[in-house]
Structures are given as structure tokens and as C-alpha cells.
């Protein structure tokens, strides 16, 4: 299935793109996505942390992704 991956801040520097239609296995959980990203791009392991938002809401590691979800990689925020 496909998700729409949005990438911000330092995560965009790591991946090299801001947006990407990504093919993933069905029923992938957020923890699986985080693991996959960290394995393919070890620089993710150097971050203080990174979160995942699905359809503009933070979600837990156990959350299961669905077809067409808008999935955002949220590195440590620093607004204000």
C-alpha cells in the first residue's frame, strides 16, 4: 500500500526529499516505519528523537498505518 510521506527539518536533510509517495507493507505500525527509516538512514539514530504524525495527529508506536495516510516525520521541534 501507499502512504504520503512528509518530511521536515533535519529529517528532510537526512532523506533528501520533503515529500514522497512511499510503498509500504500493509498493516505497518509506526514502530516498524521508524525502524525501517533508522536502518536505511542511520543518521536518524543520532537525533534526540523523532515522532510520527498521521493525518496531522501525533500517534503512538503501536498505531497501524493505512492506505493513503498522510504520514509526517517530526524531528525534535524548536518553535517559539
Amino acid at each position: 500500500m501507499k502512504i504520503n510521506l512528509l518530511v521536515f527539518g533535519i529529517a528532510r536533510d537526512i532523506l533528501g526529499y520533503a515529500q514522497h509517495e512511499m510503498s509500504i507493507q500493509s498493516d505497518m505500525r509506526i514502530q516498524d516505519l521508524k525502524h525501517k527509516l533508522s536502518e536505511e538512514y542511520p543518521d536518524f539514530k543520532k537525533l534526540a528523537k523523532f515522532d510520527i504524525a498521521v493525518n496531522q495527529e501525533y500517534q503512538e508506536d503501536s498505531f497501524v498505518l493505512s492506505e493513503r495516510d498522510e504520514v509526517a516525520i517530526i524531528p525534535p521541534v524548536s518553535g517559539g
Partner: protein
Amino acid sequence: MINVKLTIDPLSVTACEKMIEDDQAGGHVVFIGTVRNHTSSKKVLFLDFEAYGPMAEKEMHKIAERALSKFEVKHIVIHHRVGQLEIGEIPVVIAVASAHRKAAFRACEYCIDSLKETVPIWKKEHFEDGEVWVAAHP
């Protein structure tokens, strides 16, 4: 009343203060963040703010709603700017009005503390010899 805005235009502190005017509210607390000219002894030239726009506004709204339910306050305005900001410019204004001042102080501080924890906005500091995403690394 809640008013939340993410914008590329310069923020107006006065506009935020006007929005929370209320004849029943005697205490107004305003937080204004400005771009400092240094971080940990390094000279900052300017900052770049980027946001996950729609989610950032939603999170700002959630923070304001939580503050309204936690504290006895009447109005909360949270405005945040994105794009390139020079030293002294204002990335964020938070204005809170309440009948009694203590609640306004608590709510205003709660909003800026929460904003810095959860709102998907990122700033990159530009120095003479490079640049860095703030808070990205431990």
C-alpha cells in the same frame, strides 16, 4: 476566545493585545519571543523557521483549548511566524486575558512551554561558519 495564526508576515504584538481586550478581564499577560543574537556564545546571523503548517495550527489550537480548560482565562491568542527572521524579530506572540492575573501568568507560560514541546515548527540557526537545526541532536 481562541485565535491561532501561523504566518510568513511580521507579527503585530499590538494586534494580539487588541484581540484579547475585554471589559471583564483585568489581567493580561503577553509573551513575546524574539530572535537572540547568540546561542551558547556563537553569533547568530539569522534564523529560518519552517512549519508543518496545517498540523502546527491544529496543535496550537489544542494547546489554547487545554489552557482554557486548565486555567480560569478568557482569551488566548497564539501567533507564530515562519520564514527567515533577523535578530530582534518576533517569531512568537502569546497573549492571554483573564479576570485575575495569576491564571493569566500560568496559562501564558503553559502555552509557550507546550508550544516548544509539541508544535511542529523547526528553526535553523545560521552562523558565519555554518548552520544547525536547533534541538535536533542530544
